[in-house]
């Protein structure tokens, strides 16, 4: 069957090469025609050191329009290269990265031309922070889906984790208790997902949507009944920032990576943990086997259902930490629907990252960067109406998914309940 299918599918495969080339070209033309020509005359300036003490790096000034033109030309060149020659997988990825980067730099030049210097450090820091729930959500989904269970309930896990973290931290005054509670709440949603998907064989797409509805309904209900009536359940306490001694004083890198609250460091640990566990341990090999071919895994003695239960719940615990970040790691107090679609963006990051931890991480950072830009750019350049800027991450995703990534392949048994025959 596969042979027939591939034979008939080839038009799409041929298209693929040109779609990417055309996308490169379009982005290049935007760089030149839209961004470059519309840029105000004057320089764009980028500040690379945080204000105040520490080692100061001089502000970088570049002429905005010419830089846009050059970057656009690079994109066009890569597009032509992509269309005419067959590149290796690595070269393809590098070209995608180069095009995206040049587009972003051109956008920044345009926005900042003739305005006050943009603080690149702050933007990077904001990007990393904004990405935390996305990264944790996407990694949770990765653990889950690699073992063969579709996780659309990331949104519900974030939301429930956020709620539990806020209420426990407020009621008992313990931030760490809140963190644990948030994680456990995500784990509970994960447990529900596991029980219904693995034991009761419920369609996992339906299940995810339903769990999100339930989590939203429950947290709204409890917010109304508990928090709205008693402010001591929603005091809004947050974790403070921790500077890693030594590392945080490195110029540029230090303030971005090593000066934040505990959630960022947990995120580092989870990224490394998931990547190593999935790809460099026997445990991970088994998980992937279960996600690709459960029957074969079962035959060699791997406990398929147990593996899935464990991974789904583990994913829930991780997403719960991401949820906890939304309250006690960031704004403090809980509000109804505080996750506001982050779970779905994390899901998109997971798919965009082709179900790999590092791919998901990259995609999540990209989304985080767009979210941060949407916040920052309207403050530098008033020509940008905030609602239009807010569209940026979503439009970028559509362009990336349609133009650069295309058809993706999920783990083979993803979403299929395993029934021993």
């Amino acid at each position, binding site marked *: 069957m596969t042979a027939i299918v591939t034979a008939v599918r080839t038009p799409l495969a041929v298209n693929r090469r040109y779609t990417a080339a055309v996308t490169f070209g379009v982005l290049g033309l935007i760089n030149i025609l839209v961004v470059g020509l519309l840029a105000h005359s004057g320089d764009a300036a980028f500040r690379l050191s945080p204000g105040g003490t520490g080692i100061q790096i001089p502000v970088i000034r570049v002429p905005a329009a010419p830089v846009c033109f050059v970057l656009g030309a690079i994109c066009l060149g890569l597009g032509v290269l992509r269309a005419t020659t067959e590149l290796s997988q690595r070269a393809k990825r590098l070209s995608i990265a180069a095009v995206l980067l040049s587009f972003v730099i051109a956008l920044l030049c345009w926005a900042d031309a003739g305005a006050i210097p943009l603080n690149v450090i702050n933007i990077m820091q904001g990007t990393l922070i904004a990405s935390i729930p996305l990264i944790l959500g996407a990694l949770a989904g990765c653990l889950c889906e690699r073992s063969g269970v579709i996780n659309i309930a990331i949104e519900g896990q974030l939301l429930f984790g956020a709620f539990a973290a806020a209420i426990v931290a407020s009621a008992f005054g313990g931030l760490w208790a809140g963190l644990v509670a948030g994680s456990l709440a995500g784990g509970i949603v994960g447990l529900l997902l596991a029980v219904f998907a693995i034991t009761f064989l419920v369609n996992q797409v339906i299940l995810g949507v339903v769990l999100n509805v*339930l989590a939203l309904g429950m947290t709204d209900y409890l917010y*109304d009944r508990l928090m709205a009536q008693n402010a001591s359940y929603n005091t809004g306490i947050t974790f403070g920032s921790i500077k890693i001694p030594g590392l945080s004083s490195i110029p540029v890198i230090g303030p971005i990576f090593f000066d934040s609250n505990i959630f960022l460091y947990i995120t580092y640990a989870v990224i490394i943990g998931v990547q190593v566990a999935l790809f460099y341990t026997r445990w991970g090999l088994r998980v992937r086997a279960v996600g690709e071919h459960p029957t074969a895994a079962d035959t060699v003695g791997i406990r398929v259902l147990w593996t899935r239960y464990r991974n789904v719940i583990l994913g829930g615990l991780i997403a719960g930490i991401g949820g906890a970040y939304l309250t006690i790691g960031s704004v403090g107090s809980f509000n109804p629907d505080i996750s506001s679609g982050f779970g779905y963006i994390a899901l*998109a990051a997971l*798919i965009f990252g082709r179900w790999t931890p590092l791919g998901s991480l990259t995609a999540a950072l990209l989304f985080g960067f767009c979210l941060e830009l949407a916040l920052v750019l309207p403050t530098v350049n008033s020509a940008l109406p905030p609602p239009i800027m807010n569209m940026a991450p979503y439009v970028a995703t559509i362009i990336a*998914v349609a133009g650069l990534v295309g058809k*993706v392949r999920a783990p083979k048994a*993803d979403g299929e309940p395993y029934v021993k025959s």
Partner: protein
Amino acid sequence: MSDASAAVPEPLPAGAGAAAGEPAEPGAAPRPGGQRARLTGAAIIQAVTQGSSAVITILAIFLALVVGAVLIVFSDPVVTRAWSSFFADPGYALGQTWQAVSYAYSQMFEGAILNPSTISAAFHGGSVAAIFYPLSSTCAQATPLILTGLSVAIAFRAGLFNIGAAGQWVGGAIVATWLGFGVSLPPVIHIIVCVLGAFVGGAVIGWFVGLLKARTGAHEVIVTIMLNYVMYDLLQYLLSHPAMLQKPGQTNQIAPYIANNANLGHVGGPPPQAGVGFLIAVAAAAAVAWLLSRSTTGFQFRTVGASASAARTAGINVERSWIVVMLLAGGLAGLSAATVIQGTNTQLTFNSYGTYGPDGITVALLGRAKPMGVVLAGLLFGALHVGGTYVEAATLGQVPADIVQVLEGLIVLFVAAPALIRAVFRLRATSGTGMEAVTKGWNG
């Protein structure tokens, strides 16, 4: 694994039914006996003991109400206090529990279906129309839900997951609003132009999703989610500029009222009434039912939904099916916007889109992606929404309307888990729910 058609036979060409008609599960065992259930006593008993889809649905609703009751109990301080001294006076605790729960649910029923006091009032010279007020509110609430439900359902049948009904709704609402206040037309024509415009507004968004999927392979789940946010932001932008859609002299994000000529009328009585909008929803359901079960296009949709690769091998243009089905799905979501903007609201605000999109997903799931089922599920959810608002007012906020969302989630969860329902109610047999073919994984 059988499906709902065992209990509710859906007319199908004899040959097509076996080939690709009703979602043919791979490896489905041939159904025992005849394909069509006869309505004999034995058949009914069999349906109940084995848990046909209708029975499962009713039990699922019951179970959801039971879980909802626990929530009501927990949020009532009088009852929780009574429970804390349960061993001292169990009768009191149980009595209080029963009182709180039955009061909440009976208020919900009175608000959404029938209020007995209006009947006695009618006998004593009151208004007869008042008897039907709750039901008409339910229909009015159900109208947009039925339409977004159809939008999600028709995509499901072609194997696509349309999370984007919300964005398509906004697309329809923008066009309907713009045509509603921006142009001046004679009475009936204005309505038709606006409704068609809303259909087109939604259809364009849906078509774009289908086009991307067909041409580039972009997954519709990602694209629809992203387009939702894009459309929300676009709406916000349009509603904050008087040159676009904002009502002149306003600082709020609000559009002008649409012209009277563009308002969908009501059928008798004071508003909110089930008006022309409800008729549009029912007509759309009938049209979708016809399309899916009687037309070539619908046959192709279902074949693609059952197996895209098999459909492609059979010579069906899968990409075209994706594009057309998403176009129709978007159009239906746009119609949903028309019934709100031209019917109950008459004015577009930033919050108009509400939860019609996500609710459409649950409605489509509960209705098992079948048009008739979607109408019934839409009516149920409409009743829950009306009842929820009513009970919140009746209990002075003691039971927040949010409980309805929990109930909806639980109902769909239980309906999707027939194994759980069977375990709880000790039912035999293993007939499916008809939900098996609703959606697939990422690799579709």
